């Protein structure tokens, strides 16, 4: 007797827990691989899964087994030319680990690394693990487009499609019991009296009383039956309410120096930094806008393409970009409604007289409005005046301002992590 069962609709993801346990255990390796991937990948495909490869010896599950050496006999199939007593030079590594089925020796070579894929979401999780946006406080209620329909309890008015049958029946049952309680009690008493009478001897009075009782009981029972089984007052309806969903949104200002001293390599470094920041913001806010501001001696708001790829020359006045940022904020992004982040990338060059002005601008006009301002210098050389002034700001506003220097692509991610690592005291 056989039973044939269709199990195809059962849960497919029985191994999910085990898989997560595995990822958790090898977090260190995976994070290294993610780290490498960030530096290697082009910016466009940052949001993809990644193939992770872990040295096999690191995830071995050890058991006692024989090492090479000693005397052993192994039987192989497929003899073509050997005769008994033939001596053959010992093959390299082969046949050595013949622990039973000889699998170790032959498959060993190609599988030194254990490779598997993690998906996009897992990739990003590892990428931004332990990172935190500073000052992630401002959440703005925006009522206009987002409502969520939520269960709003049970009400007694509504349309037929939303009748809650169980609650309605329960209500009806309660009502019937409540309304008939007194009558039913009376019936019980009368029946008891009737029983008692039946025990007595026959007599005209008893017969009369019995007759009377029967009539009363019948009348009361009719009254009970007249109570409607289900009444309009019993009906209960599921209620749904529209709740406005708080929308958190952020705007990110990318400010980059495009003067003659910034070459394409430096721009690429800056671009990677901006991109990481963008991905990171995206995970924390539902709505993100990006404003690109490029500057040399004067600043201009541009689109992404122009921002990264068109060339300009000339001197550098950083404050022009900062002023433009301030103007755009005042113009379009009211502080009460937006979380504002700014990231500036530059080679550190600035018109010397301009640096104090920049510091003043940031401190007095920008920082009060911003959640966070980060500055990266993409130039492997001695710092200039701008750096010194910014350092003063950082000393005064450690929670809202940070800066770092990036020399080569490999440093972007560590620097990014450094700028956004979880700050315990902020929590």
């Amino acid at each position, binding site marked *: 007797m056989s039973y044939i069962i269709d199990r195809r609709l*059962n849960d497919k993801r029985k191994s999910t827990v085990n898989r997560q346990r595995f990822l958790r255990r090898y977090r260190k390796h995976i994070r290294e691989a993610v780290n490498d991937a960030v530096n290697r990948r082009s910016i466009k495909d940052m949001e993809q899964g990644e193939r992770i490869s872990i040295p096999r010896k690191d995830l071995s599950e050890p058991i006692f087994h024989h*090492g090479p050496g000693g005397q*052993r006999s192994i039987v192989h199939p497929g003899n073509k030319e050997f005769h*008994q007593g033939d001596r053959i030079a010992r093959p390299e590594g082969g046949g050595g680990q013949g622990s039973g089925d000889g699998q170790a020796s032959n498959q060993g070579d190609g599988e030194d690394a254990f490779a598997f894929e993690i998906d996009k979401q897992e990739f990003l999780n590892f990428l931004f693990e332990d990172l935190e946006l500073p000052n992630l406080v401002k959440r703005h209620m925006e009522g206009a487009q987002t409502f969520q329909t939520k269960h709003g309890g049970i009400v007694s008015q509504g349309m037929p499609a939303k009748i809650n049958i169980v609650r309605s029946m329960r209500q009806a049952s309660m009502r019937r019991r409540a309304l008939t309680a007194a009558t039913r009690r009376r019936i019980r008493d009368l029946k008891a009296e009737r029983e008692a009478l039946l025990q007595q001897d026959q007599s005209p009075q008893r017969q009369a009383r019995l007759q009377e009782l029967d009539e009363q009981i019948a009348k009361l029972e009719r009254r009970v039956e007249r109570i409607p089984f289900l009444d309009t007052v019993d009906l209960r309806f599921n209620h749904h309410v529209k709740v406005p969903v708080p929308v958190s949104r952020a705007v990110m200002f990318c400010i980059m120096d495009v003067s003659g001293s910034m070459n394409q390599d430096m721009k690429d470094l800056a671009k990677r930094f901006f991109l990481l920041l963008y991905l990171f913001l995206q995970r924390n806010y539902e709505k993100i806008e990006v404003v690109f501001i490029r500057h040399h001696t004067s600043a201009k708001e541009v689109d992404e393409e122009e921002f990264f790829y068109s060339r300009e020359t000339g001197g550098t006045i950083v404050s022009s970009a900062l002023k433009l940022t301030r103007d755009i904020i005042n113009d379009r992004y009211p502080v009460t409604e937006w979380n504002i982040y700014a990231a500036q990338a530059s080679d550190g060059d600035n018109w010397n007289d301009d640096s104090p002005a920049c510091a003043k601008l940031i401190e007095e006009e920008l920082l009060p409005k911003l959640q966070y301002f980060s500055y990266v210098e993409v130039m492997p050389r001695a710092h200039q005046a701008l750096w010194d002034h910014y350092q003063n700001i950082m000393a005064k506003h450690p929670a809202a301002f940070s800066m770092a220097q990036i020399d080569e692509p490999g440093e972007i991610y560590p620097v990014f992590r450094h700028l956004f690592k979880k700050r315990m005291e902020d929590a």
Partner: protein
Amino acid sequence: MSRYLSEGSDWDFELLARYDEAIADIAHNKYGLDTYPNQIEVISSEQMMDAYSSVGMPVGYNHWSFGKQFVEVEGRYRRGQMGLAYEIVINSDPCIAYLMEENSIAMQALVIAHASYGHNSFFKNNYLFKTWTDASSIIDYLVFARNYIADCEMRHGVTAVEETLDSCHALMNYGVDRYKRPSPISAIEEKRRQREREESLQKQVSELWRTFPQLQPATQLREQSDTFPAEPQENLLYFLEKNAPLLKPWQREIIRIVRKMAQYFYPQRQTKVMNEGWACLWHYTLLNDLYDKGLVTDGFMLEFLQNHSQVIYQPPFTAPFYSGMNPYALGFNMFQDIRRICETPDDEDREWFPEIAGSNWVETVKFAMESFKDESFIQQFLSPRLIRYFKFFQIDDDDRNDYVEVAAIHNEQGYRKVRDALAEQYNLSIQEPNIQIVRANVHGDRALTLRHQRSSGRPLDDDSAREVLRHLHRLWKFDVHLESVENGTVVSHHSMPPEPAPAVSS
């Protein structure tokens, strides 16, 4: 209406039932195969991967190593490096076999014959399975184990449970009593006894490790022998479960669970060749019978035979993808050969196998299936003809020489040597290092000493031995020593925590 059960390659549930019925009819009525009832489950390829990575257990506890396996299987399957095996069958009553929905009807019929009648009857009748496993209670026990471990994770944290499991897994191959017959496990019984055990076990252990002087002479019943345990213990996990000084009751229970799993899988490790060979013999025989009865089409048979010959292909040792003996090939050919010896014996067979030549083949293969394990099966039934067929040759590898020597080939002088050597290759007690617990220093520093008995000069793999000792140390929690002994002298020594100089206590 054609007499065929079906034409074309599509299947539906009704058709599966018809094939199952036809196969069952032949298996039970013509050949008298004794099977558990069958439960045939149709699953998708994702579910097959799940089943794969939980070593075929339908319910398993959670552990990262299963996740690792899943990740690997999934990756290789996605990249097309690996087809999924089309059969997973569970030694349970009823016997559960999985069919993958992507397969054609010919493949489904093959799997039904192979798993639900071949493996099934093997599970029910082979002496090792009868002795070591209890098919009726395994599923219940797995559920018990899963819930217990999940419960421990809630109470003691995932990490603590994981560490204990890691250590147990490292010693899993040493969690089996090779010689004592185990008592069957039953889930209800297990649960009832588990709580009792938790309490009484802890009491016993405390008694063993009592450090206060005994005040009342009456309690001094335990014999104060100088060595504990009195005899070497081969079942390391059992010893730890009962005697490790500082384990919590729940950790002892986890050791027990892993031990029971090891015991459940122990017969499978010893009968790979026979089990697969038996199943192949029957899918081959049963489907051919279907064809002879005119129930299946030529196309069906072609598809079946193509798959069959892939499964039982044995690449020669020179092939780039050679990885040792294919148990399907060896097992199938041996059973077929037994049938041939019974049906059409020649002089050589009469000389080598006088007792089975010319006998009833069904009775003979059944006897072989029921009463042997791989090692003894090969020793008994590998015929010269098969040795010639496979062109077996034996290589002797002695690390004292810089060459390897061909000790025997498929000729008159070589048959017996090749057969002995091949049988030996399937002897678990030779393939696995012989390691036993010889001493627990009860009255001193509580150090535990294990002895590895070297045979044929084969050393332990040092790196993995160190790792396993680390796990052992985690369970024992005091010093652990492992000494390799050859001809009565200690030739190498490991300790955990590591010691600068080899120190052998008293």
